[in-house]
């Protein structure tokens, strides 16, 4: 309906009683000659505008006919105020309606939707991060288990060779010791033994002659052990991604020890023809050096190898496991806080 509220009434009132303040002063004068004609014209304009708005993409255009100047002029005058207010009210009501329907609720819904979206992204990231961390932890634990098993197998293998060495050492050493104990204090037993080619003499001589071979055996043994250790470390790096630090592990007999070792052998080898007591002393000394070196350097230190290697492995993997577990715990805490926020957001 194109008739503005109050316009007809105002027109009728004007016809009945001239207003105290001439409405001619208002910009709404003069009216069209014929009211019906005026309404038709307005309807025609409205229809045209509506059609063009539809063509512009507004399917249901909401059009409010309004005269701002009429409203403002009318609001100035106490007698006109009610009419002007009633003319203004539809516009105010439209604004209120929009605030109610699309303004406030839309703002709140949009704001809430944004936060839900962010919280959703965050939740997905937490879930994804937690899943990745869990997988990482599982992989680390698995790798640690395999690497540890592999190390224990290696150390067990090493211990077996150590036993072989100990056995070798013992058989040589004990034989010589037994001879010395048996003939200790008996002057000239060496000469006698060698001269008569008695069994004891042959055994002792064999021991002395093989002492250098024994040194060589030890060095080979050490070299082989070192290679095995290096191979093991390379395999560990390839299979488990773990690099052992082998700097503290000897690859050969230390120079000082080797010198003492060869010196002792020479001493033992030079006993023939010497004073039997002195020879005995030298042999015992040689045996002592050999025995203590092998025990100290190999039997004891090889045990230390195991501790060192385990320590390296444990330090790294247990550190990784601890770190992963802590991160998982943080993810759990974050997820909990997020859930609380989401519950509050949903309220």
């Amino acid at each position, binding site marked *: 309906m194109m008739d503005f509220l109050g316009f007809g009434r105002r027109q009728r009132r004007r016809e009945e009683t001239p207003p105290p303040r001439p409405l001619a002063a208002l910009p709404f004068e003069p009216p069209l000659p014929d009211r019906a004609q005026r309404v038709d014209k307005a309807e025609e304009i409205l229809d045209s505008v509506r059609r063009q708005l539809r063509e512009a993409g507004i399917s249901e255009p909401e059009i409010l006919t309004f005269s701002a100047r009429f409203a403002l002029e009318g609001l100035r005058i106490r007698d006109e105020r009610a009419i002007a207010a009633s003319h203004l009210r539809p516009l105010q009501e439209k604004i209120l309606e929009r605030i109610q329907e699309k303004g406030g609720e839309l*703002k709140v819904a949009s704001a809430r939707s944004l936060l839900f979206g962010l919280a959703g992204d965050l939740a997905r990231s937490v879930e994804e991060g937690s899943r990745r961390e869990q997988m990482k932890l599982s992989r680390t634990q698995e790798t640690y288990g395999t690497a540890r098993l592999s190390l224990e197998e290696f150390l067990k293998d090493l211990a077996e060779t150590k036993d072989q060495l100990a056995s070798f050492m013992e058989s040589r050493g004990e034989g010589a010791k037994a001879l010395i104990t048996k003939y200790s204090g008996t002057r000239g037993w060496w000469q006698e033994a060698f001269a008569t080619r008695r069994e004891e003499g042959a055994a002792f001589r064999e021991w002395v002659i093989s002492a250098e071979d024994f040194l060589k055996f030890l060095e080979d043994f050490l070299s082989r052990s070192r290679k095995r250790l290096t191979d093991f470390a390379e395999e560990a790096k390839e299979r488990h991604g773990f690099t052992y630090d082998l700097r503290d592990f000897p690859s050969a007999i230390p120079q000082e020890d080797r010198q003492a070792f060869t010196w002792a052998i020479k001493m033992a080898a030079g006993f023939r023809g010497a004073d039997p007591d002195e020879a005995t002393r030298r042999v015992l000394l040689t045996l002592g050096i050999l025995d203590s070196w092998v025990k100290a350097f190999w039997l004891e230190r090889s045990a230390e190898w195991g501790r060192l290697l385990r320590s390296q492995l444990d330090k790294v993997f247990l550190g990784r496991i601890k770190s992963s577990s802590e991160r998982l715990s943080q993810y759990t805490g974050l997820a909990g806080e997020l859930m609380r926020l989401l519950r509050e957001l949903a309220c």
Partner: protein
Amino acid sequence: MSPFDLSSAFPSDADLFRQELERLIGPVRSELDRLGALKGRIQDLLERHRDLLPAQVFERSAQVEEQFAKVAQPEFRVALLGLLSAGKSSTANAIIEQDEFFPTGATRTTTTVTKKDWNMISIVDTPGLDSIETREDEAKAREEATSADLVLFCLSDKSGDLDTVCLDWIKELAGMGKDILFILNKKRDQ
């Protein structure tokens, strides 16, 4: 203040409108405050766990911060658009019931975007769309129109033919899904 501050002269009608605005916008403002606080807590959560989360979450958070600032303005923004002398300023004055807050006249009176915060609604008057002289002004008018909660698009009742400038703007706003109320401003046929 205008000598015709009608809201103070006749407080009852204006008060009703204000009360209704307060009734509608008050709870919205409270809820938006609550949501704003929740947003702060989410961001605090992000900061505290920065090392656990991917960079994309923080980029998203920055986007949300920006969008939230636009969306969560408690005031309701009403922008008036239309051609020169379509009655934008007069309509704006009528809404706030102040006679001359937004200057009106037969010639080009509104040359820049003018805002008035009134009872939790922010009313934005813009220059005539066919009289915008600089790109900056046009950009500003566009920014106001796009950020408005409601666009009051003033059309002249002189003719049923809409100007192409108007139609272009209307199409653009409609494309954005903007809420538009068309006002066929009656100027001569009273």
